[in-house]
């Protein structure tokens, strides 16, 4: 044994690769850091209770984000309500019940394709279907249905992957003691897949939180001085408000948009924290 070991060179390459990975990680973190730092610098001075509890205004000092914040909470909650059960049940069907034949494969491929359709297309669909055809108007429910369509493929794909990762031996064990498909799914597959499904759901809802184009398409408003009282009310949402402020010439409004971004990020972080907490509780019982 002497030929071709080249140990020194192999170790050197291994170290090189590791350094490369570290560098890439640092790069991503750095970009995020710069963004957050800049947004905080501009936005934090404006961020106070008044900002959160006031409606938009022509005057930067008086302008607030209340309607957009509540609009977003309404929108995301309703979107979750529509998209999570639909997406998870579709995934259960495709993974646990459907025969893995050509039709199922065709459906799977098309769901993957849907995940890549530009969001504006969902906006057009929502406008035609929910706003006009179903006559829901520019209501928050029309927005939520549109968003639900948009994130449905993401939820289905993530849930399917999570369900597929549940070992077949576990299902067999349950079937072998006389369980029905539903009992196996309910008692073993879904609990095992739950953390993965939750991760997918949070990713999808984060997307719904930040999407602007489809909402503008279906005609969500930019200026409203009320919070939605029900699902049929008109609404605006955080990204729309942020976008609107950035288009104003005055620099104060640009700073306001940074404050709005901070609010958006905090909502996002709270959602993620909830998911982490639920996963943690789930893993302990």
């Amino acid at each position, binding site marked *: 044994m002497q030929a071709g070991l080249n140990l020194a060179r192999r170790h050197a390459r291994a170290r090189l690769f590791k350094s490369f990975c570290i560098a890439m990680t640092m790069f991503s973190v750095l970009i995020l850091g710069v963004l957050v730092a800049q947004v905080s610098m501009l936005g934090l001075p404006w961020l106070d209770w008044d900002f959160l509890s006031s409606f938009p205004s022509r005057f930067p000092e008086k302008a607030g984000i209340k309607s957009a914040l509540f609009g977003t909470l309404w929108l995301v909650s309703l979107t979750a309500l529509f998209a999570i059960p639909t997406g998870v049940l579709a995934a259960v069907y495709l993974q646990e019940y459907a*025969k*893995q*034949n050509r039709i199922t494969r065709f459906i799977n491929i098309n769901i993957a394709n849907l995940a890549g359709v530009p969001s504006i297309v969902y906006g057009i669909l929502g406008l035609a279907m929910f706003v006009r055809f179903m006559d829901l108007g520019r209501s928050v429910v029309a927005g939520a249905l549109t968003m639900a369509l948009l994130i449905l493929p993401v939820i289905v794909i993530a849930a399917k992957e999570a369900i597929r990762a549940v*070992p077949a*031996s*576990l*299902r*067999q*064990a*349950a*079937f*072998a*003691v*006389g*369980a*029905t498909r539903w*009992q196996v799914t309910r*008692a*073993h597959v879904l609990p*095992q897949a739950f953390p993965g499904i939750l991760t997918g759901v949070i990713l999808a809802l984060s997307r719904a939180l930040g999407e602007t184009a489809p909402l503008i398409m279906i005609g969500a408003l930019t200026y409203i001085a009320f919070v939605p009282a029900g699902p049929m009310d008109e609404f605006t949402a955080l990204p729309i408000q942020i976008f609107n402020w950035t288009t104003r010439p005055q620099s104060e409004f640009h700073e306001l948009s940074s404050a709005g971004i901070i609010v958006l990020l905090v909502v996002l972080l709270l959602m993620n924290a909830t998911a982490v907490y639920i996963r943690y509780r789930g893993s302990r019982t």
Partner: protein
Amino acid sequence: MMNSTVSGSPGNSAEPDPAILEARNVCISYGENLAVNNVSLLIPEKKITAIIGPSGCGKSTLLRSFNRMNDFIDTVSQTGSMTFRGEDIYAANTDPVEVRLKIGMVFQKPNPFPKSIYRNVAWGPMINGMRGDMDELVEAALKRAALWDEVKDRVDESALTLSGGQQQRLCIARALAMKPEIILMDEPCSALDPVSTARIEDLLFELKQNYTIVIVTHNMHQAARVSDYTAFLENGVLVEYGETDQVFTRPANNRTEEYVTGRFG
């Protein structure tokens, strides 16, 4: 039927044991690939029947067909007849769930539920609406599986904290809790160390009093040690089936002799 001389009825003993399971001209394929080829055999009641043969010869496929665990593989198709106490296991009006209540299964790799030891045993009876004292039932099943003494103080702990051998005995307890008549075992010791294997083999002798056991094994010694009857499968064909003694010492078929002696070496 019991006294018929169907090819593959075990043995040439004067008084054949009554059969509980019967396979007649069973062929099983995965798509185009024929895995079990025209197998007919009678499984005698309250005996241990071993199925041996080289890897990939269709042992697991045949075993799983007895309690319809092949139903979950989309590509499988099966012909021929299979009966449990004379009733067609594959009849249109036979509920596979009911079949699995009567015919339990233990798998190659221990596969306890990632739940407590207690729940592993209790879940099956619970979802099947069994009445009576659940604690008692769990204790009885664990005792029968020779696991009770080791776990009686920790039945609420996760089953995953048990050793591999203990997990496999837990899986046996889980099957026993369903009060089945037959237990199918697919190489139940192949993932275990020799000591755990010996414990499970001892257990098999105990269980034989009350249950019919069909065990797949790639281990010649194990088949010779534990079973009353042995079926030798090769390329999906049942080459020989008879009393274990006879199959190992005076095999009727050359192939069997080569396989059995080759392994005994």
